[in-house]
């Protein structure tokens, strides 16, 4: 039986990057497939990560650099898996690479092309809190530091009008508006799926006022608002009004009931937000409206104890359905039921909704493309949820990180490392020698 020693890793977040580097160190050729124009995943949206409040960029940037500089890792950005054929150890993975319109090999990342671009649109990577051009990198410090052209908004590519501003601005001839999408077939022995997760759509719960009141934020919106490389350069001001909030409510467990599970990380990032707020706005009043406190790692309780009372007032919210965010004229009013079921009310300027982690929006399509199953919640299913947590329902395909279910960064890395271990063992078992040895063992 023929087999391949290379591995396709889908998703270049923390889990996917760690898995890729490990496989490269083990001498495997890695094809790292990422839908965004940059690598790094959700972690790089956070200025600091819990529980040690380390700078996320300092943690992740060296990993990103190593991935991009590794001769054994082919990083394919703006790419998605279309289909997989063949059998374990002998897959052909079809990947569609969308045109970047900027040649990575020629671009040096000077950024001279952004300025002349006449288009300005909301920057989705910045949670639409800032703007970008049609040729852009999502944020300062993006890796690879090479822009991409958004063909939907580019005047020339969308056929709106003739424009060559970026092409003319580039001294390296790196911008190529004739670039085409391409489809490539990769021979691989195994696949690791590490596509991460999405966030519960807070606007589906109208009582929380998300999308209606500018002062209501999702976690990633708040992360970018706090980030020193974000759209406000780290100034915490409310959109539209530009006001600095004096009172902030952080509401836990948004979407927990709808999704049917606790995400295990929201309490911690909510407490981190309390820390962020007090760090930049020492005078502010912060309220955490919580139900069950879930701090499952050995170090998390200490973090909680460190913010409880000093950085945030803890308010028990006994019913998410009865909680309502409304306008009180100048700001926002949060009405909720306390532990005894009595109605309470607080006036705030800003509300942060700690929403559930949900399956990535591309999970269904990817499951179909790879022929793997998802669980009832929509996350990728692992063979035996109780015993082993990295093998998918299809032999040779493995799952790591939050694509498998909500978890913190540490658990994502553990799963990535476990997936690599299983992939290496699996590839060994696919070798002809292994098959022969097994046959001999059986004979004996």
């Amino acid at each position, binding site marked *: 039986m023929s087999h391949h020693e290379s591995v396709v890793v889908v998703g270049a977040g923390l889990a996917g990057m760690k898995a890729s580097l490990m496989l490269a160190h083990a001498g495997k050729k890695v094809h790292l497939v990422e839908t965004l124009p940059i690598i790094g995943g959700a972690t790089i949206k956070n*200025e600091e990560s819990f529980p*040690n*409040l*380390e*700078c*996320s*960029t*300092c*943690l992740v*940037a*060296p990993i990103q650099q190593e991935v991009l500089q590794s001769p054994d890792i082919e990083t394919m950005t703006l790419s998605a898996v279309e289909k997989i054929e063949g059998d374990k150890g002998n897959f052909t993975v079809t990947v569609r690479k969308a045109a970047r319109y900027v040649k990575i090999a020629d671009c040096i*990342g000077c*950024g001279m092309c952004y300025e002349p671009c006449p288009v300005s649109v909301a920057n989705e990577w910045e949670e639409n809190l800032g703007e970008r051009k049609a040729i852009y990198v999502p944020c*300062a*410090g993006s890796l690879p*530091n090479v822009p991409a052209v958004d063909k939907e908004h580019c005047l020339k590519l969308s056929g709106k009008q003739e424009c060559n501003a970026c092409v003319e601005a580039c001294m390296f001839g790196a911008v190529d508006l004739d670039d085409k999408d391409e489809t490539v077939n990769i021979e691989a022995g195994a696949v690791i799926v590490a596509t991460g997760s999405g966030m519960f759509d807070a606007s589906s719960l109208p009582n929380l006022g998300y999308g209606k009141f500018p002062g209501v934020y999702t976690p990633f919106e708040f992360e970018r608002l706090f*980030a*020193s*490389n974000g759209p406000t*350069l*780290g100034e915490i001001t409310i959109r539209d009004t530009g006001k600095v909030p004096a009172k902030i409510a952080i509401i836990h467990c948004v979407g927990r009931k709808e999704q049917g599970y606790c995400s295990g990380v929201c309490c911690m990032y909510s407490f981190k937000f309390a820390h962020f707020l007090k760090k930049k706005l020492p005078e502010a009043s912060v309220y955490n409206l919580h139900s069950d406190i879930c701090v499952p790692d050995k170090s998390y309780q200490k973090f909680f104890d460190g913010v409880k009372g000093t950085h945030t007032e803890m308010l028990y919210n006994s019913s998410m359905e009865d909680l309502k965010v409304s306008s009180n004229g100048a700001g926002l009013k949060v009405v909720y039921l306390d532990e005894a079921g009595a109605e309470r009310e607080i006036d705030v300027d800003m509300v942060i909704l700690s929403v559930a982690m949900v399956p990535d929006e591309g999970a269904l399509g990817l499951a179909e493309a790879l022929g793997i199953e998802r669980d009832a919640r929509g996350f990728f299913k692992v063979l035996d949820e109780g015993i082993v947590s990295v093998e998918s329902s299809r032999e040779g395909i493995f799952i790591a990180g939050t694509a498998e279910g909500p978890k913190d960064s540490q658990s994502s890395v553990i799963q990535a490392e476990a997936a690599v271990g299983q992939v290496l063992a699996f590839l060994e078992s696919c070798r002809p020698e292994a098959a022969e040895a097994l046959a001999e063992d059986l004979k004996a």
Partner: protein
Amino acid sequence: MTEKQQEREFTPKIVGFLCNWCTYAAADLAGSTKLEISPALTVIRVMCSSRVDHNLLLTTFFEGADGILVAGCHPGDCHYGKGNYYARRRYAVLKKVMEGLGLEPERLQLSWVSASEGNRYADVVNAFSEKIKALGPNPINGRSDF
């Protein structure tokens, strides 16, 4: 030195020892964002702020630096675990030595600048070079007779 140069206002010479993992990355980010940063600073890359020992710092002062900035990862973020804590502890001692030499302790600054803080890097450097400018030239420049 020509007369013309002497007439110019005092431009301090500042040496910045930056850790490879955090602050050097912040300097890169400040660069790629094209922030304006005082030319007074000369950057020397080291792997960790803990490598910068007293001898190196004192030699740098004797050789004429008007100010020294040592910048690394935030406490707790050190790539090597605890290097920056050691650096901090060592400088507390060195500041006493500097006083004895007639050198204002403020001429040595230890700052924590993380990889995503390009703007803060620019602010830290610019503010430090203003501070050193106000302090004036290094009084022990070239006095290796100590």
